[in-house]
């Protein structure tokens, strides 16, 4: 029988076909390409969406799927490397999210790119197609190496799309920075991938079928054996012997190395600096990058291999701290930004910080939940911002806006829905997911993990900032009196802009209802659908990817124990903070003619405006340290290394030219030299042989 899983490979391949069409037809016969490639792109991603939904429904029927598609390298007397697909609740959910956002971004691009008369559209849609393909293939990857490979392709696509307007100076520079900073993270990630393959001989996330193993499970066995239960897998023992480390330390190092890639792509401190610059890309691309693809890839990867991270309490604590710190750090910078997309950029960094916080504190479901809700409301906010930018003739400064509420009601109300979700106001989606992350952090932190409590405190504080900058943005953009001519007479937007906004606006408002933990607690109803979705029955081959297994691993290996705290009081605290932040924004900015209040921050303002000088020190590392070092190496190379080579040749030439003089053609000189030589020889032999 033909089932959804037979078509799963087509989910990524359809956008790839759209990429090929846009590229080839766009190059050889651009006139034949409808809407510059938008139509093939929309058809392909819509096809992916339908197949994803079918896959999703099949998974909800309780059947999962793992299949090797293509053996990339057939190892002879060593391990093989392959591509395969893995469809489980996590990847099925992500497939739907990615393909849905991709379709909407394509439709929106009709309004943002085609209607605005951009040139180079085939290149744009080819990039979008390749981007969607890479991300979907990353999502279904059944092993870490394949995930890495498509992770890198995602990076390439972001480079191409951020730098889309390559004739201007800014975008190419931003594209370069995005690739370079994430490449720095991927350096560690690649060491981690290579290390995992070398240690375990496999990079599979889950072992389904005979004769295959998965690295999280082998790691679990090895750690259990180190603790005295069972036996250590032979090759793992051998490798640990070679490097002379114990299992716990080495696995923690591997986990941290892979985390390097996550920190880079998901823009966590200290590799977050590329993301605000990436706003140079066209706004629909920003929506795609931030909501569903590149930045999401990092967090998704941690969730994907959670069976490995759940074994490593040290790494979990670092994930939680990095996440909590990033959430607060980025939120504080979002407070002073003047440009609409900049506020959203810092909010993205901050929100992914929350997801990392959730994963680090054992809140696997909560983090996955937030990944989903954030995908919708952040895509919505970026597309809403794109709508505003069209209306404002590509002016992004919020101080030139104001009063757009009356002029563009669809954009306003959908944007408001997204903002309420971002700020975490009940009952919008972001509230439920963010609240759950904080709740998990609290209960596991209170269960004797003070480090997690510190991460929790940072995450909680960030809620206030989030509420503030979100509504500062809303009020400055949409409320009050128009502060410029364009704001008084904005450019209209068409259905292709409004439709994606409406779809996402509804989702941002409602999607949180799938996992209302506090309500479930209060009423005793079984309405935590996402929770149930992510649980895999123990009898299944895929049980290792289920929440129950992660929960068990967290308890057994990471020593995570939940304290008995109800969800209501913590939820109320975070809601109160969000409302407090929003309320402060209301007081300061919801007036007819708002003024800048940032001066009141004093010296702090300068620090925030300059993003804590993070960019400066990274630029200094590149241009102030590495480049002079390279130049010094070059001077050394030209002067010393090559100097020696030229010196040898000069000495030879010089010696040759001097020795040449002996051959002057005078027989008497030759005779004298002969005699001299004989004497020297005689004396030498005489001394050595003892004739004297």
């Amino acid at each position: 029988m033909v089932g959804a899983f037979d078509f799963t490979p087509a989910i990524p391949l359809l956008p790839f076909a759209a990429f090929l069409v846009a590229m080839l037809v766009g190059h050889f016969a651009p006139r034949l390409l409808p809407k510059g490639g938008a139509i093939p792109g929309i058809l392909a991603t819509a096809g992916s969406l339908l197949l994803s939904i079918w896959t999703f429904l099949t998974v909800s029927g309780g059947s999962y799927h793992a299949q090797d598609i293509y053996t990339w390298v057939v190892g002879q007397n060593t391990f093989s490397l392959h591509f395969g697909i893995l469809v489980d609740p996590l990847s099925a959910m992500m497939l739907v999210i990615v393909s849905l956002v991709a379709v909407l971004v394509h439709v929106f691009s009709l309004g943002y790119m085609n209607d605005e008369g951009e040139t180079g559209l085939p290149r744009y849609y080819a990039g979008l197609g390749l981007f969607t393909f890479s991300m979907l293939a990353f999502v279904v990857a059944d092993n870490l190496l394949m995930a890495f490979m498509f992770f890198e392709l995602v990076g390439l696509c972001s480079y191409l799309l951020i730098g889309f307007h390559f004739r201007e100076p800014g975008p190419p520079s931003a594209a370069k920075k995005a690739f370079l900073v994430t490449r720095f993270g991927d350096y560690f990630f690649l060491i981690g991938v290579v290390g995992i393959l070398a240690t375990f001989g496999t990079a599979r996330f889950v072992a389904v079928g005979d004769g295959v193993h998965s690295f999280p499970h082998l790691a679990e066995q090895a750690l259990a054996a180190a603790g005295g239960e069972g036996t250590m897998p032979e090759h793992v023992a051998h490798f640990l012997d070679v490097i002379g480390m114990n299992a716990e330390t080495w696995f923690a190092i591997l986990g941290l190395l892979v985390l390097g890639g996550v920190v880079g792509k998901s823009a966590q401190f200290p590799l977050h600096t590329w993301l605000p610059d990436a706003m140079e890309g066209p706004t629909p691309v920003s929506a795609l990058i931030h909501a569903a693809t590149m930045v999401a890839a990092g967090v998704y990867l941690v969730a994907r291999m959670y069976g490995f991270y759940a074994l490593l309490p040290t790494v979990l604590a670092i994930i939680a701290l990095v996440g909590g710190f990033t959430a607060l750090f980025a939120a504080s910078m979002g407070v002073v930004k003047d440009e609409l997309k900049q506020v959203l950029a810092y909010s993205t960094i901050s929100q992914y910080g929350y997801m990392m916080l959730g994963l680090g504190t054992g809140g696997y479901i909560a983090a996955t939940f937030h990944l989903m809700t954030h995908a919708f409301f952040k895509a919505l906010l970026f597309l809403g911002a794109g709508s505003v930018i069209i209306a404002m003739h590509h002016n992004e400064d919020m101080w030139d806006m104001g009063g757009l509420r009356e002029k563009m009601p669809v954009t306003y109300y959908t944007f408001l829905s997204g903002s309420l979700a971002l700020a975490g106001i009940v009952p919008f989606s972001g509230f439920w997911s963010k609240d759950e992350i904080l709740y998990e952090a609290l209960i596991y932190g209170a269960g004797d993990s003070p480090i997690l409590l510190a991460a929790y405190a940072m995450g909680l504080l960030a809620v206030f900032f989030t509420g503030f900058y979100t509504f500062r943005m809303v009020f400055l953009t949409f409320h009050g009196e128009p502060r410029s001519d364009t704001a008084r007479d904005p450019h209209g937007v068409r259905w292709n802009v409004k439709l994606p906004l409406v779809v996402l606006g509804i989702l941002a408002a409602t999607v949180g209802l799938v996992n209302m933990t506090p309500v479930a607690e209060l009423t005793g109803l079984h309405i935590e659908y996402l929770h149930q979705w992510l649980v895999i029955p123990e009898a299944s081959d895929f049980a290792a990817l289920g929440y129950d297994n992660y929960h068990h691993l967290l308890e057994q290996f990471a020593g995570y124990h939940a304290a008995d705290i109800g969800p209501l009081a913590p939820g109320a605290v975070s809601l109160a903070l969000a409302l407090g932040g929003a309320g402060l924004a209301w007081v300061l900015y919801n007036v007819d003619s708002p003024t800048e209040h940032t001066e009141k921050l004093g010296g702090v303002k300068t620090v925030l405006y300059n993003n804590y000088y993070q960019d400066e020190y990274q630029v200094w590392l590149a241009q102030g340290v590495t480049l002079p070092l390279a130049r010094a190496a070059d001077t050394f190379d030209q002067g010393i290394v090559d100097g020696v080579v030229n010196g040898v040749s000069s000495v030879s030439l010089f010696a040759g030219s001097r020795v040449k003089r002996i051959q002057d053609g005078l027989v008497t000189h030759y005779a004298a030299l002969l005699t001299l030589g004989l004497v020297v020889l005689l004396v030498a032999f005489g001394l050595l042989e003892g004739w004297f």
Partner: protein
Amino acid sequence: MLIEALIAVTLVSAFVVMLAPDEVAGKLAFALSLLPVAGSLWMFGQFDASGNALFESGNLAFETTARWISVGPYALNWHVGLDGISMPLVVLSTLLTSLAIVSAWTPIQERQSQFYSLMLFMLASLLGVFTALDFFVWFVFWEFVLVPMYFLIGIWGGPRRKYAAIKFFVYTNVASLVMFIGFVALVFALPVQTMDLPAIAAALDAGNFQTTYGLGAETLKVVAFFAMFLGFAVKVPLVPMHTWLPDAHVQAPTPASVMLAGVLLKMGTYALLRFNFTMLPGVARDYAVLIAIFAVVSVIYGAMLALAQQDLKRIVAYSSVSSMGYVILGLVAYNVYGLGGATFQMVAHGLISGLMFMCVGVIYNVAHTRMVGDLSGIADKMPVTAAVFVAAAFGYMGLPLMAGFAGELFIFLGGFSATFPYAQLFTALAMFGIVVVAGYLLFAMQRVLFGPFSADTDYDIVPAAPHDAAAIVVLVLLVVVLGTVPEVFYGMIQDAVNPMVDSLPEATAFLTGGEL
């Protein structure tokens, strides 16, 4: 007799082209160069060898042996054949020569028949280097490769061509001498009456030395190993023996650069693999740390030098130093992924560096400058070239599904599962090269290809000639195919390196095969 036919056809083609008038020489050379391409591809299709050429268990493809001459007690025989290591390099040589000939059509406007003839002479000698299995035959071809390259640089090169050509010739020739002495000394110490490489390898494996010049057998092996290592390292080139390379590349005309980076450098690593690492694995193992240090220094130092350059060609030249360091790391790892990856990387880097040089050449043909500061935003004027340049640069950075990633990944996997001391640390350090390479190529692309258009040159920036664009597009497609289906070569490569791995079981951290 296929190998002989292949070399003979190439040689005859070289003579034909030499006699042809200048106006048709380029087209004729390309058409004739397709014969060795077809021949090597046909041989690739018929390839049925198994095992390693230097092992008795090895089963060679297209092998021929013929008595030639005797020198004293030593029989010098014509002995050629292919195994899984040499076959891919033969295909690489023929393909790259054809494409390099196309890339010469635009820039080479003087003494064309001589130019193309020398290109084909070089291919003939390269085919000899990769197929010969008798030391004497091999050495003749090895030395003969230098001659056409010397003239290609010395006649058609840039302003300092004489200096570069002589430096290239003398440096590598002196190195060859050291290598020759080292190897011959080793052979004279063995009870063999031949210069046949498999026989010598077998004798070394048996370890019966007749004489060791009063050194002790182990010491002799070490001395011979390092004499050969030095000789080959100049060719690779390994830091600090690399300084001839940037001069040669910058002065050489584009097609010669393509051949130099694409194939000639691989002679060094191929010889290291065949001689040092196959015949004296014990020494390679004992000095693994030292060799790994050379490899890591080459990778990082070479990449840092590339970062400091302003001339696109110098950037690519130094990055070759960096990439070839990876090959050495793979060799020293001495397991399937290491040795196989090193061999694969020779082919992959051959294609990608050839591609990079051709891209730079296409820009130079149009702009007549290669300096990063002179050009800006030329993607607007040369869209196809810019697109291929971006693809090539990402290929060089190791983008997955392109050949360079596969080669580097295999080497990293090999390095990480090697058992010599600190192998993992060395590998991790060398891997930092992937960040630096991204740095200098991204900077170069941002400046040259993107941003507002400006060109500090007297020439109009116009799209590349169709044949130039076609050549780089074909090459970039080959890079993608090889990265997507590495098994094309990697299966036979693994088969050929496995006997080596078996000869040194302590070098690999893995005990079992298959997917673990």
